[in-house]
């Protein structure tokens, strides 16, 4: 397969995946019962019945014309960044709510994920190289950490470090009373509030990276070229890093991209436990209060973010693996 075919194949994938996310998002509210206008009418009993039509227009709940026509209108709206109006924070626009909450999630979860990936991969390399050493032997214990439901561990951590010891704040993203902005008291407070959430994410997700890296690394160490490198008399460090680990890291790298979707899932629970002002908590609030436009908008943004992360990972993969550059990497 040539390099061009590889790029075309990936492009087709992104177009189809993006279209699928868009379409799923279009059909969910149309296939499911319930609609935001009823919620709004119930919320404000003093509204006149005439207001129903106006609200239906506002929330995009009026399904006029054929399905194809609605679909076309929906796609046009999305490409104009028009995601509708939120019900719970009426009359705030869905797009501005997402704009306010997304940076919180991206910063915290992004940093925590990179730290977890780097630590887990590094420890996995060590565990494989010094196979049977102490690191390798504590590995089964780490699976227990992986088995614990994330929110359960997070609640225990909050109870121990925030409630009983009082070392860290219990919840929220920054101290109440501070105005968000680029000034030191706020940045300091935000950093302080992010320690526990980040820690829980790293602890629960690290073992997975470590295990996968260790297992691939053990297989790679058995390859002849690693033996050849050792036979040449290269230092152990050089053999590990540039011969064994560099090849063994490739599956971990693509797993990293694919798991970004699950990272955002983890963020959902983390934000609920810590009442962190990110996009996951907003999605949760939208679901519990039947705010359909907000729910749809956030799901779309999350899906597109995952696709974007995949695109970046593709680029990294091409840089890291010469075979992918030559267009010979399938599976």
């Amino acid at each position: 397969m040539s390099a061009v075919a590889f790029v075309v194949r990936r492009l087709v994938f992104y177009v189809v995946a993006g279209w699928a996310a868009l379409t799923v998002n279009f059909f969910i509210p149309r296939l499911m019962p319930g609609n935001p206008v009823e919620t709004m009418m119930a919320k404000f009993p003093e509204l006149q019945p005439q207001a129903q039509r106006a609200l239906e227009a506002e929330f995009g709940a009026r399904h006029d014309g054929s399905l194809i026509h609605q679909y076309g209108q929906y796609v046009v709206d999305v490409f104009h960044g028009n995601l509708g109006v939120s019900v719970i924070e009426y009359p705030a626009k869905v797009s501005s709510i997402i704009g306010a909450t997304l940076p919180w999630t991206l910063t915290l979860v992004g940093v925590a994920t990179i730290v977890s990936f780097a630590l887990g991969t590094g420890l996995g390399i060590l565990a494989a190289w010094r196979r049977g050493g102490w690191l390798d032997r504590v590995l089964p214990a780490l699976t227990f950490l992986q088995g614990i439901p994330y929110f359960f561990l997070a609640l225990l951590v909050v109870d121990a470090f925030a409630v009983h010891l009082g070392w860290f704040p219990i919840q929220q993203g920054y101290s109440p009373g501070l105005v968000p902005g680029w000034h030191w008291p706020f940045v300091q407070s935000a950093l302080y509030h992010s320690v526990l959430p980040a820690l829980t994410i790293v602890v629960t997700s690290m073992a997975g990276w470590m295990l996968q890296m260790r297992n691939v690394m053990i297989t790679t160490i058995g390859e002849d070229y690693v033996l050849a490198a050792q036979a040449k008399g290269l230092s152990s460090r050089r053999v590990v890093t540039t011969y064994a680990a560099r090849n063994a890291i490739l599956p971990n790298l693509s797993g990293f991209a694919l798991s970004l979707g699950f990272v955002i899932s983890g963020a959902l629970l983390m934000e609920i436990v810590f009442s962190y002002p990110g996009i996951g908590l907003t999605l949760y609030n939208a679901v519990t209060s039947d705010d359909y436009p907000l729910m749809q908008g956030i799901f779309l943004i999350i899906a597109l973010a995952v696709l974007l992360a995949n695109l970046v990972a593709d680029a990294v993969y091409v840089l890291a693996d010469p075979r992918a550059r030559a267009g010979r990497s399938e599976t």
Partner: protein
Amino acid sequence: MTVALPVRGARARGATRRAAGARRLSTKARIGALICALFVVAAIVGPMVAPYDPSAQSFAPVDILHAPSMAHLLGTTARGEDVLSQVLVGLRATLVLGLLTGLIATVLAVVVGISAGFLGGFWDELLSLLSNVFLVLPALPLLVVLIGYLPQRGQTSTILVLSLLGWPWGARVIRAQTLTLRGRDFVAASRETGERTWRVIFFEILPNEVSLIAASFVSTVLYAIGTSVALAFIGLTNFSQWSLGLILYWAQNGNALQLNAWWWFAPAGLCVALLGTGLVLLNFGIDEIGNPRLREAAGRVRIEGRAWRPADPTPVVRSGSTRSPAARPEAR
């Protein structure tokens, strides 16, 4: 300059050891299988031996949020319900959900994976594209949105949605394995002798993928249990059906942590964690069956800080190394 290390030790001894190692499952895997078996037994007999009705409330002061005692072995909730009964009944629901989801998703993964790998060409492109698209759909947010819209949040709808989102990973792995198997001589031979396609698939290819399929089943069960417990914890579940997640939901709602009522949330949480550990350990064992290099080695020797096994290539160290070169038992 480097030297190859001298080789010492009897070939026969190494060979018998390796044969014994292949037959024996590793300790990790056996512990995992044991944990899983215990939970299956508990799920089967649990609801029959539960001492109380899990939903029976009692507002007598002595029954409210009482620490474990002889009457209530795992204590009571803030509404006087028996925690042990809830765990025993809830375990079955959670396990059934996990196993059913694992079954449906694995069947889907096998069908898609083998079709893509065996048919190749256009169908491979199409099915791979499909599984890649499903793979990037963010599962938990989609579940939250879907289950948020559903009129009743029953077990069936959760199982269906979880299965629908749980198959692509397994399908990818099985497809890759099918691709390599398709080119093997024994498959070509069976085709040459005029075997029908379904026979080639079911009797030549499928048996060689059993460990992969088992691993994919186990990890799907793990994913289903973890996700369903998380969904129940945030309140997206059927409130009339006790499950481990629902216990945790009520414990969190009743501020069990702040009240130091550890007996309310710890049993259900530990059950999920133990079950998860058991499944991961079981998967270790399945991986080791499929990939002999991962097996715990007999006759391991440590040289220059690295452990060598009989199946490894001959270790080589820098000459003039201060450490004495230890010997390995067998060279290949």
